[in-house]
Structures are given as C-alpha cells and as structure tokens.
C-alpha cells in the first residue's frame, strides 16, 4: 500500500482527529492506521463494498416499503470509525449526562412552577413563544419526574480540541438506531481490531432504555406492554423506527393502531384491545393528540394526553419536551445550571446570542458579517443565513427583520468543525472531511447513562461546513476505546434463532393491517365489478348495430348501482367518461383504483413485487387517460388490461399469500363485495322489465363472468331460467350468489369459533330461503305473465335483502374487529 497520507491536506485552522499538530498519527489511531497500511487498495475497497451491501440487505430486511426506485436514500457508512480514547470520552460522557439532567430539570420547571421564568433566568419568549410549548401539558406530572427518557446532543470539536454543543435534541431524538446499525455492520468488517481495541459495547444503552420504560410504566401489576409510535411509512426515518422496534422488541404502531378508552391506552389487535403501558414516541409531541394538541393532526391518538394526565400511560419523551429545541436556550444554561444543580456547566455551547434582549440585538447587528443568523423556533419559515454572504442592502433588510421581532432570532458564532479521515474508494486514498458527533443519553434509575459511542456524521464534500444527514453526507461508527478488553455479550443480533423463537402468527397483529387487507379485498373486487359493467356499457355504446335495448338496460343498471351519473348530468359519452375517470364522481373507476392502490400500499409487505408493480402501472395509466376527450377504443383496451391484472391479483391472493387471519379478512372482504354486487345487479336487472330480453341476458352473463360456462353447457343463446340458475343457484359457480353466500357463512363461522362471534342469523335464513327457491315457478306461472313478474319481483326482493344483510355484516365486522366497540350497545336516538 502506498503512503495513505501522501495527499492529505492539513488546514491549520481545524483540529485533526487522526493527526497531531506535527502531522504525526495520534497514539489511539496507530493500531487502526497500521492495519490500513498493511492492507491493499483492493482489500479496502472490498471491505467498503461489503458495508454497502450489508446496508442494502438490512434495508430490504427491515424496510419492506423501501421502493427500489423511490426516494429512499441508502444509508452511507464510511469504512473507518472515528476513534475516541477512554479518558477523553469520560469528560464528554460526564458533560452529556449533566446536560441531560439539567434539561430534564428545566422541563420540570417550565411545565411546573415556572420559577426560572419568575427569577429572570429564562426568558418567557423562549418558552411561551415556542410552538412546542404545549399549554395543555402544563402541570402534568410524568412518572418518576422524568421528562427526557432519551436525549441527544450534537457536538463539534473546536480547533483547540474541546468539544462544543451545537444543538440539543429533546423532542424524539433520532439516530440511536442508526448508530446501532453502524456498529452491527462495522464490527463485522474489522472483527479483530474491534476486539483488540477494546471498543465499548452499545448494548447496555438499549437495555437501560428498556429497563427505564418497564420500570416507570404504570403497569398496575401487569407485564408492561411498550409500543413504538411512528408517524408512518412516509416518514424519512421510518427505517430507523422499524429497526429500533425490532431491536427493542416493541410493536411498531401508528396512531390509528391505538385507542383511548376510559383514559387508558389500548392497542387494537385482531384479538381485541390490549392495554398499552408505555409509548416510546417518534412522533412530534404536538401531533400526538388531535383532541387537545394540534387539531389538524391525523397521526396522533385522540385522548392520549388525558391518559397521561390520569397517570395511566407513560409517554417517552414526555409530551411537551420539544420546547427545549431552540438555539436560543443554550446561552441561558450556565446560569440555570448554577441555580438548579449548584455546579458549573461542564460542556460549553457554541457561542450564541439570543436577540430578545435589546442590548444583545444591537451588538449582534454590529457584528452581522461574522455571525450565523438562525430562527429561534422550529415553526419559523426562515433558513439560517451567514451574515458574510449578504451585501449591504440584504444586511439592512435582515436587520429590519430582526428588529421587528428580535426574540425570534439567534446570532451564532461560526463553528469550525474537526476533520476526520474517510476512505475514498475511487481515489484509493484517505481524505479529511468535516465531522460532527451525535451522542445519546438515556434516563436510568441512577441518573443519565451515555451511550459509549454515537453517530458521527460526515460532511458531503471537502469544503462543506455544515454536517447534515438530510442534505446528504455519510456517517461513521464511533468507537470509544477502553484501557482493557471489554467483556459482556454483544447486542442480540448475533443470537441464533431456535425453536422457542418460532413465530407462526403475530400476537400484536394490529387491527389496522387486517382492516386494510379487508378493504384491499373489497376494492379489488369492486374495481373488477365496475370495470366489467363499464366494459359492457362502453362496448355496446361503441357498437351502434347492437340492440339499443340492451344498452339502455345496462345504463339503467349502472345508474341504479350508483356507478353511472344520472341522465340529467350530461350527454351519454360525458356520463360514461365520468363513470370511468371522473375526478368529481366518487364512485368512478379511477377513484376506486386510487383507493385500491392506497390500501395496497398499506399492506405492501404482503404483496409480491410483481403484483405491486402491476398495480402501480395501472394506476399510472388510469391517471394518464384523458378524462375529457377519451377515445372509447383506447378505454376498452384499458378495461381489458385492467381486468387481466385484477384477475392476476386475485389469483395471487388465492394461491400465494400466507393464510393467516389477515388473509381470511381479505377473502371475506372480496366475498362480501361480490355478493353485494351480484345481488344488486341481478335484482336491478329483474326489476328493469328486460328480463326476457336476450341481448340483455347476454351481458348479464358477462357481468357475472359466466358467459363461457353458459355457452359450454347450453350451446344456445341466453335465456332467463338457465341464466338465473347459473348466476343465483349454481353452487359450483364462484360467481353465483349461493356459492358466495355459503362461502361467506363458512368463513364467518370459522371466525366466530375463534373470536366468539354471535351467529349470523339473518344471512343464514336468507341462504335457506334462496336454496329453497324453485326456478320451476317461472315455467308454470299460476297467473300467466303477471305471475312471472310477481315471481321475479319476489326474487329481486330476496336478493336485495341478501345485499343488505351482507352490508350490515361488513359494518358489524368493522365495529368489532377494527374499531373495537360493542355494536349491540348501539345508542338509539331519542
């Protein structure tokens, strides 16, 4: 290996993690450096590639939603860890632990007696002006007085080698999961070094978090159930939520998975409500309860705050803790530390001046070119500005803005970041990059424990001064070295799985997953049904020679089923287009495809990649079709392709999906939807007065997807009695009413045995009545053709009753399994 440092720039202004002032490798780096020098370029590149592959695999394993072509950026991890010697780490850890205790005490004060405000040690502007000061949380006492269960701090190293705080993370600190993932990967890349250097393990940190939540959760003697609350799969750090939930063994839930009853939080599972004793939240606090906090939040749990207030659940971090995330706060911490802790603040913060005090504002305005101007509150739409980047006019405009509302701005000195080596595979050399370090602390029974390590973040390019994961840039593992060999087991990732670990079904299967599968089943069938009816109408509309009576009957049915807009809403071609593609028409095929795709997205982990792609493709095509001047030939084409894809989708569901409870609900959803559709269609047809019309009977067969069966059986044109037999009574035809009705009853019975459901009396009775129906009453009518009409009307009534009963069953299942309320206790209106 050639000299690794041959082309390693050494700007004097910065501290170098690797090299001392004389350009010599610092003692704690020598061992790692020696190994690098012994390695060939190819070996190092191979290791780097290994890391990348590992990360990608984890992404696949843990983030089933990751879209291969989507916005999900792969996590970047540099080959070299950043190394910190034990004695240096002790100082950092002591400072971080002290700061966590201090911030916890500040939260206790601002949500309690507010003595710091009364004493003039903390400006009310920084508290009451902050959008994350949550008034409804005032006076709420968290268990054990702990507001901050997890705390993270961003550190930067100044040229003199001291670490300075650049930001506090108190809301729902992210990154600990990434630190753990980095460690898992990098310790495998350098197993010998990892052992020989005595790198301190991270496992204790996560165990402490588990212990603290279990200890503080108001469990009332039950084994505590802790859940990890995520904003959902669209959140940028969703991957980390999944990863942490699995590492900690907590169910990962969204707000809609939880419900509050009698000021107690429950997880909605298929088997019923399970009490939740603690919520580790990754959702910002103001979004957590739409009843009392931000009313526009659909992500939270209505009533959560009242459950906290009543001491029935632990929320970590406490609701309201986000108020301390402000660059205005650190300037006041030294005096507050003296007051609350009686000791000086160990870790200094980067020099900053909150402009809310008139003299401070004037001083900051004078030195504007040397400063970074930042918003005080996260809600402000103001991007930080470097004073030196502004010309005179821009500076004047900025000064005016600051004078108008001084307390909303903070002036900060520029941070000079330290430089650490990164491996550049394409240049086969080491290059210095600016780094910052995020360090984590967790509350324990005896004060805060600091994770020995952390997430080192690396600037994206050589001259970047800002380190941000969101803006690109890589990460490093942080190795805290110890004087002696580290014993103790590593975290659970290396544990082999045995028989005791086998999982056949998820005991915490959230109702939401099942509900989405149920609706996935309903919407896929609904799309199929309406596509078929639309194809019938369109084909007959395009083909002028066909029987106009058949088209007319189909249109009447379309209206009756609510698919086609009423006649007075426009010309026929406009109405057909609206039914297909209408943006405004809620029952349009396009709208139902959108619903299908949405539910598919939420159960995507259960679908195959090919199925998902097919759905996305159809959706895209439906979006592209011209809703105003559609070509009916193209549209027919589209309907044909759509029906094929939907058939593939249902084939997949039948053949390839795991037959768990979720699958059962999917099939029940399909079954209910199809039953309703055939019943309503045939009933509508029978009432249309065209029951004997041959071409109308032809399309009814087509609608029931039974034309081929009919033709092979009868080799004749469609006639009423055999058509009705095939669509209503034939128990071998999966498109017949009796087939679907019996399937539904069987499924419900099985469900009832498992979950103690009352028997479906109404449906069972209707099934008996339909089975007993004699088609021969149509052959020998007692009262001539009027008698036939009476029989057909009676039949239509029965079918409508079945459709109605199926719809009521759907509502009942929803209330029982998804909403979890007892529908038998329905309150009647007075």
């Amino acid at each position, binding site marked *: 290996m050639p000299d690794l440092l041959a082309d390693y720039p050494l700007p004097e202004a910065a501290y170098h993690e690797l090299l001392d002032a004389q350009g010599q490798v610092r003692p704690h780096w020598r061992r790692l450096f020696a190994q690098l020098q012994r390695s060939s370029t190819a070996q190092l590149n191979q290791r780097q590639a290994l890391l990348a592959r590992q990360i990608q695999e984890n992404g696949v394993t843990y983030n089933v939603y990751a879209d291969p072509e989507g916005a999900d950026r792969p996590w970047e991890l540099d080959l070299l860890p950043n190394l910190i010697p034990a004695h240096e780490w002790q100082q950092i850890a002591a400072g971080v632990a002290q700061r966590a205790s201090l911030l916890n005490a500040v939260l206790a004060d601002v949500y309690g007696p507010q003595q710091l405000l009364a004493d003039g040690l903390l400006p009310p502007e920084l508290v009451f002006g902050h959008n994350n000061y949550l008034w409804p949380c005032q006076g709420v006492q968290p268990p054990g007085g702990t507001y901050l269960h997890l705390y993270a701090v961003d550190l930067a190293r100044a040229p003199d080698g001291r670490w300075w705080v650049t930001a506090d993370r108190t809301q729902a600190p992210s990154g600990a999961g990434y630190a753990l993932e980095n460690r898992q990967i990098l310790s495998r890349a350098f197993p010998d070094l990892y052992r020989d250097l005595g790198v301190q393990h991270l496992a204790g940190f996560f165990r402490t978090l588990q212990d603290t939540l279990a200890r503080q959760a108001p469990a009332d003697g039950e084994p505590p159930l802790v859940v990890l609350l995520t904003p959902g799969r669209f959140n940028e750090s969703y991957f980390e939520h999944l990863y942490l939930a699995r590492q900690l063994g907590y169910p990962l839930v969204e707000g809609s998975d939880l419900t509050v009853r009698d000021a107690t939080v429950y997880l909605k599972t298929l088997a019923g409500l399970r009490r939740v004793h603690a919520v580790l939240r990754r959702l910002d606090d103001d979004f957590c309860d739409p009843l009392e906090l931000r009313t526009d939040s659909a992500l939270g749990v209505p009533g959560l705050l009242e459950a906290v207030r009543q001491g029935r659940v632990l929320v970590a971090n406490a609701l309201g803790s986000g108020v301390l995330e402000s660059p205005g706060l650190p300037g006041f911490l030294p005096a507050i530390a003296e007051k609350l802790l009686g000791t000086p603040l160990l870790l200094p913060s980067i020099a900053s001046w909150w402009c809310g005090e008139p003299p401070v504002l004037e001083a900051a305005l004078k030195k504007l070119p040397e400063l970074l101007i930042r918003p005080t509150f996260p809600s402000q739409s103001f991007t930080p500005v470097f004073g030196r980047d502004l010309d005179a006019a821009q500076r004047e405009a900025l000064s005016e803005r600051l004078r108008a509302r001084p307390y909303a701005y903070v002036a900060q000195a520029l941070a000079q970041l330290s430089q650490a080596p990164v491996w550049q595979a394409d240049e086969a050399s080491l290059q210095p990059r600016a780094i910052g370090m995020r360090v984590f602390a967790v509350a324990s029974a005896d004060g805060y424990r600091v994770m020995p390590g952390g997430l080192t973040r690396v600037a994206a390019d050589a001259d970047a001064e800002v380190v941000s994961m969101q803006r690109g840039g890589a990460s490093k593992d942080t190795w805290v070295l110890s004087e002696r060999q580290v014993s103790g087991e590593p975290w659970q990732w290396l544990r082999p799985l045995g028989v005791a670990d086998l999982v056949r079904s998820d005991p915490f299967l959230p109702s939401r997953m099942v509900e989405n599968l149920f609706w996935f089943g309903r919407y896929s069938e609904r799309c199929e049904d309406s596509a078929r009816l639309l194809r019938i109408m369109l084909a007959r509309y395009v083909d002028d020679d066909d029987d106009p009576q058949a088209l007319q009957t189909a249109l009447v049915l379309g209206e009756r089923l609510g698919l086609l807009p009423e006649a007075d809403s426009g010309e026929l071609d406009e109405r057909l287009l609206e039914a297909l593609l209408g943006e405004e028409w809620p029952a349009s095929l396009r709208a139902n495809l959108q619903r299908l795709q949405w539910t598919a997205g939420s159960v995507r982990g259960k679908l195959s990649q090919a199925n998902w792609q097919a759905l996305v493709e159809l959706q895209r095509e439906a979006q592209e079709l011209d809703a105003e001047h559609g070509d009916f030939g193209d549209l027919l084409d589209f309907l044909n392709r759509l029906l094929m894809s939907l058939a593939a989708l249902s084939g997949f569901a039948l053949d390839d999906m795991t037959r768990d409870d979720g699958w059962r609900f999917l099939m029940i959803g399909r079954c209910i939807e199809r039953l309703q559709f055939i019943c309503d269609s045939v009933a509508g047809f029978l009432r249309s007065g065209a029951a004997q019309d041959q071409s109308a009977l032809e399309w009814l067969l087509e609608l029931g997807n039974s034309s081929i069966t009919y033709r092979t059986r009868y080799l004749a044109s469609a006639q009423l009695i055999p058509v009705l037999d095939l669509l209503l009574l034939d128990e071998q035809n999966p498109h017949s009413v009796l087939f679907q009705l019996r399937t539904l009853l069987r499924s419900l019975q099985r469900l009832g045995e498992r979950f103690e459901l009352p028997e479906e009396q109404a449906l069972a009775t209707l099934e008996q009545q339909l089975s007993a129906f004699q088609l021969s009453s149509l052959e020998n009518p007692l009262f001539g053709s009027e008698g036939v009409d009476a029989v057909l009307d009676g039949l239509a009534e029965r079918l409508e009753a079945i459709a109605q009963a199926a719809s009521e069953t759907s509502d009942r299942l929803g209330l029982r399994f998804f909403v979890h309320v007892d529908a038998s206790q*329905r309150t009647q209106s007075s």
Partner: protein
Amino acid sequence: MTSAHYQILHDTHYRYSAPVSLAQQLAHLWPRDCAWQRCHLRQLEVGPQPCQRRDALDVHGNPLTRLVFERPHDELKVSARLQVEVLARVALTLENSPPWERACALLTYSGQPLPAPLLEAARFRFESPYVRLKQAFVDYAEDCFPAGRPLLLAVRALMQKIFTEFTFDAAATQVATPLLQVLEERRGVCQDFAHLMLACLRSRGLSARYVSGYLLTQPPPGQPRLIGADASHAWISVYCPRQGWVDFDPTNNVLPALEHITLAWGRDFADVSPLRGVILGGGSHDPEVEVTVLPLAAPV
C-alpha cells in the same frame, strides 16, 4: 344599575349522516367566575348519555367538561342552562394608562425577576393557532399607535378602526379563514375581528387574550325576543401594566360592561371553542347552534 342578571340557553345539536362509533368532546360551556361576574346556576345536559364525564379547570382557569362516548350514536345534543350575574366593572380612565411603548418594554425580557401578573401576561404575547404574527398587522395598526400615546387610548383607536373599516358578514369567513385574508377583504365575524385585533396587538409586542362569551342583543322595536336568535360572541382583553386586563369589543366598538357575559378566555378560539371533539365516523355534519340570552329582572 350595578349588576345585570341573565338566563342563557346554549344548545348545540349534531345530526350525523352516518353513525359515530367513538367520540371525545371538550366543552367550554360553563362560565368562569371572575371579579365582575357570578354564575348562580349551571347545568349541562348531554344526550346521549356519555360513558364518562369529567369536569376540571383548563390551564387558563376555565371550567372544562370532558365527554366520552363509546357507543354508536346518530346525534349529539349538548344544552347549557346558565344564570349569570354581571357586575359593574371598575371605572377606568383610559388616558391614565402608560405609553404603549412602556408596556412593550415591561413585557420584554430584561434578565430581571418577573412579577406574577407580567408572567401571566406573557402567556398571551405570542403566536397561537389562529393568530400569526406578521409585519402586515403592525402596519395596519400603525396610525393607532403614535409614539407616546397611552396604551388604552391606542387600543381603543384600533378597536374603532376595525369597527369602522370592516363589514360584519357571516358568509365571508369560516373558522379557518386566514387572518391575512380577513385583513385584505375587510369582512368577517366577531371571531375574525377579535383574532385580527389580537394579531395587531401581539405583532407589536403587547399581551392580549381572546375572550369567548355572550352578548345581550335587543330585539327590533315592538317585536318579542326570539328564542335561539342570539349567538356566541367573542372579544379581546389587553394587558395594561397599570390597569391590568381591559376588555375591548371590536365588533361593537364598545368596552364590555353589563351586556357582555364572559365564558372563558385563552390565546385564541382554539383554546376555548364552546364544543370541539374528535369523532370516528359521522359522515358530513354541521351543528345547529341556538343561543338565547334572556335578561332577568331579579335573581331567581
């Protein structure tokens, strides 16, 4: 007359187009007691019967009723019956208030200990859900706040300005209409005018809070008082370092006295809306609200 007695009926009726399976409601329908007001009777009737009902004070000291419904229901009816006595307030000489700049300076952090009234006032100086702070609001009120004018005179001028320049128009806005749009279109209802006045005062660094309540309205001459024809009302209160909190009603251009009945106060409407909740199901629904304010000759 040193006091006035009222009976107030406030009915809210939701008829849901689809059943509501779960609901949690927060009601600010019981008047708070304050120096100029006594509540002699308060009843809250709720139908259907809630599964739970808890009464407490909210963080600003207003009575708050929490209602929880865990059974499907098609409608919700909440009826408040109140008897309130409004007392005459301490007479004020607006000219005696300190210059408005002095009030701003006292409210601004200076590193000195903060007396309790100023700390209380500080709650109401910043942005809140319906009140954003903008330079446009400073500019709008500029002519009401010449240098050195006593605070309460300046606030009265602002009240008059809003009263004169804005048209009361119940069709113009909804609760969520942004204030900048209200300012541009110059129309709205009492809630908008109160929020606008708060924005003008707070954007300038003053403390002001939103007051929700009722107003005695007079029927047209010769006609009987109609039941249910009144409405909820809203106005503002500004903090003056010498005189304390002083109410102003920009919708009617008056300083509230015996005809204003105070229900609750907070940073803005979001803190004190009479009835708000989160429901599951329900379909589309708009509540019917009926308010009647009846003057009583003597306590009943």
